[in-house]
């Protein structure tokens, strides 16, 4: 009895003490990722990370709070709600395509579709729903797509990201692809996403404060002052790529979807703050 207890204690010490490096896993990655940002921004409450630059810079936050008194995405939100509640020509509606009638589910996107073997984002799911019901797909990035995702995000406001990686090697591979994309340098400026949103997060790049990657997708879709209009995650990925002088990929390209999968999983636990406003 005494020997068994000793062995169990030794085993526990071995696993926890980390004598050998633990095998890499998405959960281990997530813990390390979140720890990095918690250490970097000790004043920022964990739940605030969905507020990007405003979570890590007080004067920026003040301007944001002023704008949030009456957010400019209000019009898109209304447009999105109306569109979401409008039946398709065949009598069905978006509610028929999603669990919980599409309400309060944004935090579960993107998910890995084991039937088709790929990451499915909310935007993609919306268009698949439309096409399956005889409607033309919406253009990505802005307009009605941004309005509908704004409404669906609003119904999830405050709910923590809850992304799953099913026990499927393809799902794991998609996650790893997204991770690799995040850390890979690209384009003329030779920056990776991590260069700005991890290593330099919270610092200024000319007029902007770089948002931490933790929670960075929680506020989407956003009304960005720079655009004077709404934009989805796609819009930001493609414009950021261009601005970094890297080849922008088409919206919903599998590489962007995998990146979104990785970033969202890394943000598990961070509450949805969308739709949002940004500079």
């Amino acid at each position, binding site marked *: 009895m005494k020997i068994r207890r000793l062995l169990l204690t030794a085993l526990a010490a071995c696993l926890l003490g980390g004598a050998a490096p633990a095998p890499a896993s998405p959960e281990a990655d997530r813990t390390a990722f979140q720890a990095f940002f918690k250490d970097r921004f000790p004043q920022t409450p964990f739940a605030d990370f969905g507020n990007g630059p405003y979570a890590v810079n007080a004067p920026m936050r003040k301007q944001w709070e002023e704008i949030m008194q009456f957010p400019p995405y209000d019009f898109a939100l209304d447009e999105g709600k109306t569109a979401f509640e409008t039946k398709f020509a065949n009598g069905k509606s978006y509610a028929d395509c999603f669990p919980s009638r599409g309400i309060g589910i944004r935090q579960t996107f993107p998910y890995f579709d084991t039937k088709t073997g790929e990451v499915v984002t909310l935007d993609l799911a919306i268009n698949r729903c439309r096409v399956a019901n005889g409607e033309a797909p919406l253009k990505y990035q802005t307009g009605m797509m941004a309005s509908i995702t704004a409404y669906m995000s609003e119904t999830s406001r405050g709910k923590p990201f809850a992304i799953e990686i099913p026990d499927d090697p393809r799902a794991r591979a998609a996650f790893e692809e997204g991770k690799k994309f995040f850390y890979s340098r690209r384009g003329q400026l030779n920056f990776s996403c991590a260069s700005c949103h991890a290593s330099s997060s919270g610092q200024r790049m000319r007029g902007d404060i770089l948002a931490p990657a933790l929670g960075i997708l929680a506020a989407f879709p956003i009304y960005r002052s*720079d655009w004077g209009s709404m934009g989805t995650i796609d819009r930001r990925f493609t414009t950021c790529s261009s601005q970094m002088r890297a080849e922008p990929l088409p919206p919903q390209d599998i590489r962007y979807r995998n990146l979104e999968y990785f970033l969202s999983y890394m943000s598990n636990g961070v509450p949805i703050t969308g739709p949002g406003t940004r500079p």
Partner: protein
Amino acid sequence: MQTAGPFPNETTRRATLRLLGLLGLAGFAGTAHAASAPGWPEDAFRQKTPDEALKLLYGKSFEASDKITLDVPEIAENGAVVPVAVSSSLPGVTRISILVPENPYALTASYTLAEGTAASVGCRLKMAKTSNVIAIVESGGKLFGTSKEVKVTLGGCGG
């Protein structure tokens, strides 16, 4: 607004704006349109300098006052949307105007307050570049003002 084509980024957009201002082409932008809304002080809105705008709007100059609170960010998060709030403890405030000298036209907005309306307005303004923001309050027929600088820089991601 998209600024692709020969003007792919914020740098050239801003440069274009300044160039237009310098060339005096800015005025062209406003000539060919329908008659202005009744009571809209068109001439005041077409002046380059605060002095010229105030002369047309009020016919007088202002004195500095510490009874005006001008709430603006030190560094604007984006020059397209700069939150500005003006309030004043001066008595009998009838009008509040906000001017940005470095904009192509200095006068951005002017508010006429009825009796009983508080001397306090909040709005969101465009600033072409780093500039003072001047808040002018008309109280008892006299003009009082205060100003603060707002830094406007290029966005870091802007190409």
